[in-house]
């Protein structure tokens, strides 16, 4: 069994301890100001660079993966989304892909049952992925309350919906629990399923542990150890308004662990597989229409190649062609 997840777990624990101890020995400015700024900078520069680098390479061929009937004869109903020929179709296909993870929804599992090979529809991966991404998204939006003053209406509205269970005090946010749950499920999937375990490496476990770390510290602060929220907002608002400072009286060291994890995650994105958040928009098998036979696609580097021309061909076979009564250009 592949236990590379232990390295990632260890790395995240050590990183957490570093922030905890760092904050305790007076390095609040480092963990509360310098590192967050550097992380955001690394993220923005790294992300933009990566996407521009992708954009620099052309798309020489239109290699759509078609998942439905093409548009041909009038009386055959085309699959306008899974095999789009128009921009509208492509946009809908991309939206379904990005917002609903449509391809993942098709997932099946192969099983050998007696003499039959069967393919069972399985939605677990899709479900965990949807739970994970949407709860993470909600958590991020909710956190705007720490970075914007006054808190925008949509954040308040989201908080109301997210807290609708009215469970406990402070009220439970569903997204936080879902985030922790889904991330844990995704992690367990990697550790326990033999095939997943086989293909998973440190780079797969690290972000999962990091996000679990973020969720756990966040949940700890909100529901258990408690922090002085006003002080924390003072710090985060300082960051967001470019007037950074560490609030008087300080905030709990756990907060610095939380913030450090977030900084690491943010800075890690452009240099890792987490760039799939940008890549999904640019995948040529999904974002192109299958209208190749209607509209010529241009390859900017279309090379001149040496071809074997008809004349050369006839040169090789002229006598044989004439004998066989096949017309030739030169008698």
């Amino acid at each position: 069994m592949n236990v590379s997840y232990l390295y990632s777990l260890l790395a995240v624990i050590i990183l957490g301890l570093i922030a905890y101890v760092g904050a305790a020995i007076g390095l609040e400015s480092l963990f509360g100001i310098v590192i967050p700024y550097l992380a955001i900078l690394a993220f923005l520069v790294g992300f933009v660079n990566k996407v521009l680098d992708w954009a620099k390479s052309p798309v020489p061929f239109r290699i759509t993966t078609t998942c439905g009937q093409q548009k041909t004869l009038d009386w055959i109903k085309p699959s306008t989304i899974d095999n789009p020929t128009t921009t509208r179709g492509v946009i809908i296909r991309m939206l379904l892909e990005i917002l609903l993870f449509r391809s993942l929804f098709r997932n099946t599992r192969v099983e050998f049952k007696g003499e039959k090979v069967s393919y069972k529809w399985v939605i677990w991966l899709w479900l965990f992925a949807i739970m994970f991404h949407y709860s993470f998204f909600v958590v991020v939006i909710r956190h705007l309350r720490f970075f914007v003053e006054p808190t925008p209406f949509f954040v308040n509205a989201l908080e109301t919906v997210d807290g609708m269970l009215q469970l406990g005090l402070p009220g439970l946010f569903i997204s936080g629990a879902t985030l922790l749950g889904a991330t844990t499920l995704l992690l367990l999937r990697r550790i326990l399923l033999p095939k997943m375990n086989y293909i998973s490496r440190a780079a797969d476990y690290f972000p999962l542990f990091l996000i679990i770390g973020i969720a756990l510290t966040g949940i700890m602060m909100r529901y258990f150890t408690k922090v002085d929220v006003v002080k924390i907002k003072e710090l985060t608002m300082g960051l967001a308004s470019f007037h950074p400072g560490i609030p008087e009286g300080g905030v709990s060291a756990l907060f610095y662990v939380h913030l450090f994890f977030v900084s690491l995650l943010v800075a890690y994105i452009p240099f890792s597989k987490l760039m799939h958040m940008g890549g999904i928009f640019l995948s040529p098998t999904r974002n192109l229409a299958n209208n190749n036979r209607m509209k010529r696609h241009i390859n900017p580097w279309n090379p001149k190649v040496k071809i074997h021309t008809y004349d050369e061909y006839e040169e090789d076979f002229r006598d044989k062609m004439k004998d066989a009564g096949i017309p030739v250009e030169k008698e």
Partner: protein
Amino acid sequence: MGDLPKPDEMYESIDHTPPEEEWEKIESPITPGRYAYPAKDKNLSIMEFRTPGEWSPADEEWPLPENWQQIIHEGFKERLEKYRSLKIFMDTCVRCGACADKCHYFIGTGDPKNMPVVRAELLRSIYRNDFTTAGKILKKLSGGRELTKEVIKEWFAYFYQCSECRRCSVFCPYGIDTAEVTMMGRELLNLLGLNINWIMEPVANCFRTGNHLGIQPQAFKEIVEFLCDDIEEITGIKINPTFNRKGAEILFITPSGDYFADPGTYTFMGYLMLFEALGLDYTLSTYASEGGNFGLFTSSDAMKKLNSKMYAEAKRLGVKWILGGECGHMWRVINQYMDTMNGPADFLEVPKSPITGTVFNNASSTKMVHITEFTADLIRHNKLKLDPSRNDKFKVTYHDSCNPARAMGLLEEPRYVINNVCNYFYEMPENTIREQTFCCGSGSGLNTEEVMDLRLRGGLPRANAVKHVHEKYGVNMLACICAIDRAAFPPLMEYWVPEVGTTGIHELVANALVMDGEKERTTDLRFEPLKEEEDEADEG
């Protein structure tokens, strides 16, 4: 198939449990039955590739050039700059595992390196090490590894255990297409002169003689005339197809497999009979006598070189448009590459069926129509006299060929045609057809005898689905629209479901087609009685 295990033994032996060892540490990827013989120098030199001399993948030391690492590095860099797809596919995979059990080669072999994700990792690991910041700093931690000779062997082994069928790309949340990865990997191997002869010989042949099999013009004509004699014997109608005729309305191009060996030849006879019944003004070409394009399995340049003949010949002959036969990867090239590579075809007209008047606007730029589109249109307009009962001895199922399904979306046309020429048609289970169809196991140049073990294993998912409908409905005929299928299925069926035959769709069309002035038919195109005696049909 002498030293192959019995089907049930092979089936029982398939184990999907991953090995103890990490894939990075598993050595000696070259396994008998899973590698094809290397390309011969004479073929490589025709296509101007490096010629490594005589060698075998089983050799300890491979004939790599001195600066092979540099060649690969620079070749990789060049391709990253030319293909956004490659960059995206290298960067975005999260190893979610959705693709892992979608590959027929993984399902059939259980070899973890045949999981699409790992196959791509073989290349990705080198990409990370050589081209990414994280890889340069974190090395192994980011999933990078050094390019060694062992890696080259691994690439050779596994990029030639992928049939570029794109099934995995249907399931990938980012649309990562292993065909694209494999194509890039094969291009890199080509830079070192490492290719397989089953691909390189057809490519070289096609370049010189116009078709994969190296059939010369006079021989092509002789074969066609021979097939016409058969048609005459069956129908009493003499057909005289023309060759390289200028001024014909339509140029017809089909894979050479269709006129080389049965059951492809029956499909070819089917085309000729259909055209004769319609009185179509068409010609065959000896120069463009190949619909397929093994260049697709070699490099984009090789693909372009071979494909160029279609438009060049259409132009020379002055035809109005091109009609294409039943072939899988041929249609990937025509749909996704031809116009871009060798277009614009502004010397041709938007295809219009001379029989029905239907304008094929879907091919308004490429000017090339698929024969099942053409025939479906004919049937829709009642232009064909059909007697489907002539196919009554066939219980037919239909195999969607990978490329027409996933690189085009030709799903309904063939079904419509089959339903009109056969009375007994049964679909295979839904996760094995249409865009989820399984490869025949021999695609992308892997239909050679020496990889029979791989082919039978890779063909298992398809064969097993056929077996299902065979047992459930008594299916005894597997229809397809791909010349490689027609070559690959007979041995595959022989092994897994021996009672099922293989046919092209236009063989079924021609069986049912009532031609003006034909004599009463007593046999099908295979010279077998039209109706099998009842007891005989009722087998096993």
